[in-house]
């Protein structure tokens, strides 16, 4: 299934929290323009993988590489690595590490083309939906202080473009009527979709969705699967998603990675994973329930 050059490669990822080994030797690849699902029981370490990919956690070990449109990015490197003794005889590496220690961080992961949503929604609640999407375009608009104060033509053009883009994503996600409502006042399902719209406004190559269907009713889940297909087919983004709704996972994903207790226990097409004995035993009843529905 894996193409010669994946979009994202995670190799031997290890994450330790004090005594807890949350991830142990996790390796997988995400093919460009595909939908990859990351599944596993609660506490398996799925969100931890996401946090490592998006640069929020510094992995204890392992390499995460994003093969981007222009250049390849080593996520561990841009969030600031630990210094080691050998670095002091390699000034070039030392300088690079110091630079990323000062100015690096998870925002660079986002700028290199990884967008994400959160398991427990993180919207800017006291701002309108539209402002949420404008904030997401922060790196693309005209941020010059003076041109903003004097409303120069170039500033207005950039703002207008950002506004059009925001309205575009609102209508793609079916939120056009909520444009000027406070994000915190939207119904739950709309908040989930707004978070996806906000992530898409950063113009990502890879979007990581953390349990996007959690708390949605069957109709909303159906709409979500259509939306995810649209993202892949019309906007050519690669989707990496964590999901517990097996019906959704099996119907939309091209590739499934199963995680249990911080280790990859199975990987492959939805059908092959579905019948994998290791997966069935990890999931116990959950698998049969999904097959019935």
């Amino acid at each position, binding site marked *: 299934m894996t193409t010669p050059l994946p979009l994202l490669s995670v190799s031997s990822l290890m994450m330790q929290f004090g005594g807890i080994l949350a991830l142990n030797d996790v390796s997988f690849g995400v093919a460009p323009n595909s939908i990859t699902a990351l599944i596993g029981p609660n506490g398996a370490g799925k969100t931890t993988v996401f946090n490592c990919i998006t640069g*929020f956690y510094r992995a204890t070990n392992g390499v995460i590489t994003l093969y981007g449109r222009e250049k390849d990015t080593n996520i561990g490197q841009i969030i600031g690595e630990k210094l080691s003794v050998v670095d002091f005889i390699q000034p070039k590496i030392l300088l690079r590490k110091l630079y990323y220690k000062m100015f690096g961080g998870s925002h*660079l992961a986002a700028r290199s083309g990884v967008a994400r949503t959160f398991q427990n929604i993180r919207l800017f609640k006291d*701002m309108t939906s539209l*402002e949420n999407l404008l904030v997401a375009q922060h790196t693309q608009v005209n941020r010059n202080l003076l041109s903003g104060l004097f409303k120069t033509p170039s500033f207005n053009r950039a703002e207008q473009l950002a506004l059009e883009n925001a309205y575009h994503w609102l209508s793609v996600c079916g939120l056009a009527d909520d444009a*000027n409502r406070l994000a915190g006042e939207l119904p739950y399902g709309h908040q989930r979709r707004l978070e996806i719209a906000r992530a898409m406004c*950063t113009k990502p190559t890879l979007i990581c969705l953390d349990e996007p269907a959690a708390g949605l009713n069957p109709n909303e889940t159906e709409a979500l699967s259509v939306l995810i297909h649209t993202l892949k087919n019309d906007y050519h983004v690669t989707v990496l998603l964590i999901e517990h709704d097996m019906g959704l996972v099996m119907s939309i994903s091209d590739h499934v990675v199963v995680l249990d207790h911080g280790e990859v226990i199975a990987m492959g097409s939805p059908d092959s994973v579905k019948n994998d004995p290791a997966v069935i035993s990890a999931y116990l009843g959950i698998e049969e329930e999904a097959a019935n529905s």
Partner: protein
Amino acid sequence: MEKIHKPLDFILAFKGAFVASIIALLLFGPIMGLVLSGYDYQAELQRPLIAAVVVFVGRFLFSLLFQFAQHEPRLQWMLPRKTASVWVEGEQVESKQSVRLFSAMTAITVLTLTGQFWLSVAGGVVLYLLLSRLGKRKHQVMVALVVILGLLMPFFATKFWLTVLIAALIYVLLGLGLNIVVGFAGLLDLGFVAFYAVGAYGYGLGHEYLGLSFWAALPLGALMAACFGAILGFPVLRMHGDYLAIVTLGFGEIIRLVLNNWTEFTHGPNGVSAIPPPTLFGLEFSRIPKQGGTPFHEFFGISYDSSFRYIFIYLILFIIVSLMIAVVTRLRNMPIGRAWEALREDEIACRSLGINHVTVKLSAFSMGAMVGGLAGVFFAAYQGFINPSSFTFFESALILAIVVLGGLGSTVGVIIAAFILTILPETLRYLATELPKAIDSMSDYLPSFLHNTLSTLSDGLGDIGSYRVLIFGVCMVLMMIWRPRGLLPIQRRAYHLDKPGDAK
């Protein structure tokens, strides 16, 4: 809201009142019960007892009142409002009756400072009528009115009120600056006075050592404060909440201690004196020229008046404050302002969108510091003398009180709060000197016991200035209970596409 006719819970009210009165007893016991006289003391235990009884009755009644208000729609406004009162532009176009009344009352109060009572009432009535007639353009008309009024004010106000207004405007400036840091970006800064001090000393020492004039010090002082903000900010802005507050508190104290102890450079507690007021294209506002220019009154051939100087400072300050308000309002609709507010809402989400939280915080920090520095330059120019005792932690707390009272992030709220907290004590002090005179003049018409009571009361007002801090404290406590999100609701801008066809 289902249970409309829930009976009042007297037991609950009684319990609350009992606990409150015990606390009051413990608190007031030593404070009010022991009266010191020399090395000795007298125990007057009836005083804390009376206080505790007052607290008991008050708490009991309030508890009943709130219970009652919960089920009475017309009394809902009394209840604490915990949730954010944010609304989006366009949802409420018509101004409410209360807003109109409030504006009219404010106008009357402000105009009273000119000493012409009937003029001020007329002004208030005109404003009220205007507000109820004007539709969409209300906002612009209001702004224009306020600007015109503000520019004309110094020519009518007495010198006393002029100085009070200048102080108030300096606090507005400080409030606007801190509002950027605390209100917009959500960074709790307890040492804001440091930047105020940097601006003031920047002018004071810059004049002493380099001969800087006011007009050179204004941008330089602001720039210097901004640099200080950036230098302080870079290492500490990775911290959150409480840690940041403690570090900024420390920074404020460090600046004050340096100013106090580096005597060779700053003259320590003696401060910097003879700081010149601003000049108008080289024309000075003193009787005898001190900076080598021509005095203003000689140039225009009018007689000297010491209030010219204050009028001039007021006018510059008013223009700068207006500009600052315009800039802050504009910033909220710019990418940087949106990023500040987003950062306040959720830092992790910001980072996931590619926003560098450190630089965004840094920009808020130095922008706020810059405004604080501007205020400092004005303070030095207006006082003519500065020393470290003007830049204590109390000052930081006062500025923070302005921002919190005004409602974190609301510009209009901050302006109103700054005026209330600076003009109110002065008004009370003014009343304390004027009221006894008025009461004396009425002694012929009043029964003697009423006259006596009134004059005792007005004498009690005499040292109201000493209760300033107590009044702030009470205001803050009430606000935290009643309107924790500030006096005014925050309005958010609604964005619409000009060309609706592009939406789809």
